[in-house]
């Protein structure tokens, strides 16, 4: 029997604000335990929360980037539960008046995965269990989060992965979070149930908590769908419960705590006034958004005419795309600029992170100056690549490495002289070319390139050689 997957994803993303959501403590990662703390974020008696404006702004940005409707009035609620990492025994969150609602993410297939809501809330502290003790660090307590809840529109593990990937990329792009899953600044909870094709009723669902990589999302869904299908096939019923994905065994198992029996007793937080954000402000925030990544990708392919593979390599990283576009604005050609970024600059960057940071020592204008030399055929691509490496190492402009004679190129007379020399020095190869063994011409190219230090225009040389050989 085949089943259809019905899946929704809840994603928590840590916002890259300078301060926590309700106090002025820094959100900086790391630091000695309990040193980024104050009475507010450690839940001291008598302390009161003061909402950070940037958190609201970032959440609105996220909402706009995900095609949501922004609620111009919103408020904070308390979600009550007891856990040692939660210093007030309630998390300040949003329940019935989230900042953003009703958006979507479009998959490559054109299918839209609905976004039910986006709300803001605070993170909890960290627990360390060791030698019979639990140690608590509240540095992360009060770090702002947004929770993005999708509709149960996802129907395969692949779609889930694509959804999460697109979400991650978009959030990074608009600059509200670094979305590092392995470091916990992006975490996914997956809700999953099965039903027979054609059924309109949902089956009983389980929730797989805290998945911390994109590929685990895919694997966890496959594992949980299999587990549920086995139970259903055997005539069993699914129990609604919270699960955990174990990457070592690639399996899903129920969590043992009492989380399933909680009653959060949400109510409006009396310490925080309801707040409004007017249309004008929303439009101002909308105007501050960069071109969104998938719009950019489409433009690179359809307008700039980049091949899909190259376009996909460049658009992913906002800083790379900005650098690329900066070079185009300075007059560099699309093709050479793109190829030099992908072929030369990326060769120094092994990790996603490096490309994300794109910390290079030259400006887009300096890069463009070099690209233009290649565009104007004053240097060939090989020289451009070599020069670019030197520029990247030193931070100095192209002029520092390209001699005037390089720029002048090889004169026609010199090239003709060199071509004759090449033929004379390689008579057998010349014969081969004459008899149709075209590849033999490479031997003569090699000679010319060696003599010119790679600066000869290869197409001109080819034409000349053929003329002289008479092939």
């Amino acid at each position, binding site marked *: 029997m085949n089943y259809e997957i019905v899946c929704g994803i809840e994603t928590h993303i840590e916002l890259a604000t300078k301060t926590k959501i309700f106090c002025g403590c820094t959100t900086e990662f790391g630091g000695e335990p309990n040193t980024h703390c104050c009475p507010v974020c450690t839940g001291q008696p008598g302390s009161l929360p003061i909402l950070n404006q940037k958190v609201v702004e970032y959440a609105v940005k996220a909402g706009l980037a995900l095609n949501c409707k922004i609620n111009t009035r919103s408020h904070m609620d308390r979600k009550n539960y007891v856990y040692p990492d939660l210093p007030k025994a309630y998390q300040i969150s949003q329940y019935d008046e989230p900042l953003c609602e009703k958006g979507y993410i479009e998959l490559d297939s054109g299918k839209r995965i609905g976004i039910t809501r986006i709300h803001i809330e605070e993170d909890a502290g960290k627990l360390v269990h060791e030698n019979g003790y639990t140690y*608590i660090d509240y540095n992360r307590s009060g770090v702002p989060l947004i929770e993005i809840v999708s509709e149960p529109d996802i129907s395969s593990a692949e779609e889930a992965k694509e959804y999460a990937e697109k979400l991650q990329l978009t959030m990074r792009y608009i600059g509200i979070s670094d979305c590092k899953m392995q470091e916990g600044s992006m975490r996914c909870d997956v809700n999953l149930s099965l039903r027979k094709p054609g059924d309109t009723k949902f089956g009983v669902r389980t929730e797989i908590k805290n998945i911390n990589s994109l590929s685990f999302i895919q694997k966890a869904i496959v594992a949980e769908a299999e587990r549920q299908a086995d139970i259903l096939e055997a005539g069993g019923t699914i129990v609604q419960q919270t699960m955990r994905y174990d990457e070592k065994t690639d399996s899903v198992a129920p969590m043992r705590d009492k989380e399933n029996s909680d*009653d959060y007793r949400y109510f409006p937080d009396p310490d925080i006034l309801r707040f409004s954000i007017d249309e004008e402000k929303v439009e101002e925030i909308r105007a501050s958004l960069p071109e969104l990544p998938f719009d950019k990708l489409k433009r690179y392919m359809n307008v700039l005419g980049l091949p899909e593979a190259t376009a996909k390599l460049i658009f992913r990283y906002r800083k790379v795309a900005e650098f690329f576009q900066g070079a185009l604005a300075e007059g560099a050609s699309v093709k050479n600029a793109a190829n030099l970024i992908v072929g030369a600059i990326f060769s120094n960057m092994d990790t996603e992170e490096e490309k994300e940071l794109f910390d290079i020592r030259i400006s887009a204008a300096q890069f463009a100056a070099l690209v233009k030399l290649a565009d104007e055929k004053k240097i060939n691509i090989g020289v451009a690549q070599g020069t670019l490496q030197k520029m990247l190492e030193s931070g100095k402009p192209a002029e520092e490495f390209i001699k005037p004679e390089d720029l002048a190129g090889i004169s026609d007379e010199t090239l003709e002289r060199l071509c004759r020399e090449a033929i004379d020095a390689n008579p057998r190869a010349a014969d081969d070319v004459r008899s149709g063994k075209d590849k033999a011409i490479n031997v003569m190219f090699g000679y010319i390139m060696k003599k010119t230090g790679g600066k000869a225009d290869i197409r001109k040389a080819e034409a000349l050689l053929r003329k002289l050989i008479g092939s």
Partner: protein
Amino acid sequence: MAISKTDIEKLAWLVRLSFSDEELERFTAEFDEIIAFADTINQSIEGGTEQIRSVGARMVSFDELRSDEVAPSLSNEKILSNVEGYNGFFSLERSRK
């Protein structure tokens, strides 16, 4: 509306309170009276179905919210001044005889 001892125990668990049998007996009886008292609000005035929100009609605009500027945190010493900490952490033995 009568409330059972089991209901009381369930509620108590949510807020981490426990009662001895004798306490539970007394508490359940008292609680019945308190609930009946609270219930008097349901004997008159039909309430609307509007959504309720935080206190009063006051609302702040986006511009009035706190700006994102770092204020110095407190020293670890102060943060831990009401407990015995361990290496800068709050420390909790998981069980104790």
